[in-house]
């Protein structure tokens, strides 16, 4: 039953994305200054919204793990970081493609881009740390602490457009600027895409959590078998 709900939610997210794609590609007009390429923004921003949410939830789950010592929080935070990292890569790639068209270069070392890359590296380090610890409790504890530290980089990435003068465009969404920076129709699609990606990410996290649970069970069975022999 749970499986059906999970795949159903994934299907809804997929269909919603297809419907949004239709809107973006065929209904919305080109933008005045940027032409057709602005459309990538409607995936770029939602991807970052998704990955920041995933990192936030992973951080919160890590705090909860340290308080409650319940393995489920650890499972959630690793699943969340893995999915978040995938969306970080999508965010970096879409941004890079946009930059190639608008700026003429794939990459520039401005504060926003640099911090986004650092965030990516830091969370990849988190996953590496997990591989280097064998004992499940020690792994959960150490990676929870690292996850809390890592969240600092997410905050800096988010705020970097306010703190430094960046080549990366400043805030455009009306929730941060009070409106006027973006056409309401385009902004509405952007948020709908964000909802679709968040739902998709949620499904991916749930699937990944089940894998993690199974893996833990296999590990404990293996230990049990060793003990029995």
């Amino acid at each position: 039953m749970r499986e059906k709900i999970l795949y159903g939610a994934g299907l809804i997210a997929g269909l919603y994305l297809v419907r949004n794609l239709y809107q973006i590609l065929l209904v919305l007009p080109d933008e005045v200054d940027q032409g057709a390429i602005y459309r990538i923004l409607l995936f770029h921003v939602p991807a970052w919204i998704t990955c920041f949410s995933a990192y936030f939830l992973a951080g919160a789950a890590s705090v909860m793990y340290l308080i409650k010592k319940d393995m489920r929080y650890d499972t959630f935070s690793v699943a969340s970081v893995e999915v978040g990292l995938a969306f970080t890569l999508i965010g970096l790639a879409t941004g890079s493609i946009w930059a190639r068209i608008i700026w003429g270069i794939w990459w520039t070392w401005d504060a926003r881009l640099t911090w986004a890359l650092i965030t990516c590296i830091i969370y990849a380090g988190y996953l590496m740390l997990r591989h280097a610890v064998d004992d499940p409790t020690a792994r959960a504890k150490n990676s929870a602490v690292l996850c809390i530290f890592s969240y600092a980089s997410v905050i800096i990435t988010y705020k970097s457009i306010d703190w430094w003068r960046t080549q990366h465009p400043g805030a455009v969404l009306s929730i941060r600027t009070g409106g006027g920076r973006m056409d309401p129709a385009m902004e509405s699609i952007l948020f709908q895409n964000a909802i679709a990606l968040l739902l998709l990410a949620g499904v991916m996290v749930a699937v990944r959590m089940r894998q993690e649970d199974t893996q833990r069970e296999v590990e404990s069975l293996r230990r049990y078998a060793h003990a029995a022999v």
Partner: protein
Amino acid sequence: MRYLRQTLTIAAKDLRSEIRTKESLNAAISFAIVILVLFSFAVDPSSEQIKEMSGGLLWLVFAFAGALILNRSFAREQNNDCLDALVSSPIPGSALFLGKALANFVLLTVVEFVSMPIFGILYNMDWMRQPLWLAAVLLLATWGITVIGTMFSALTVNLRMRELMLPTLIYPMMIPALMAAMRLTTLLINGEGIPADDWIWVKLIVGFDIIFTSLAVTLVEIVLVG
């Protein structure tokens, strides 16, 4: 007061054992000198270019040498289960952490004060034009890196491939402090003061120190004890 004494006891213990063996201090200083020499091949050591990148060069040297010191910080307690003894001794985990961080801070500062004149001689730089500000920046940023480094040293002490994991994890974390320190050190070595525009970097280092020191002090007990 008691807390302070406990912290200082740990710091004194670490420093004493380091002074008697000199194992990481010697390694770190010679490593720093080797990197300073190597850099002369990467860039033309006599050009104006070196002025522009002096801060970056120095802080890379300090960060690399620092990793050697930080790696040993908790690893040296593994022999004879010293770490277990320390954890079970009647001092709070945070005092243990601060003591170790303090010892690492002193050691890394020594490495820096040895490397600076060597840098000045090798690259023909008059680096003492703003000595007080330079010292302040060095100390603030060094505290930032040692706090992160000591915390992660505790975190990675039981890991496979510890020597590899520690630098991989700490360098990205240190970037805010390193970035600010590089920028400010370049300015100060070239004899300029800190222009109004660049005060944000000073604030960044101070903020970094405060945030990560408090985070580490709160979380270290969990890392050490569980």
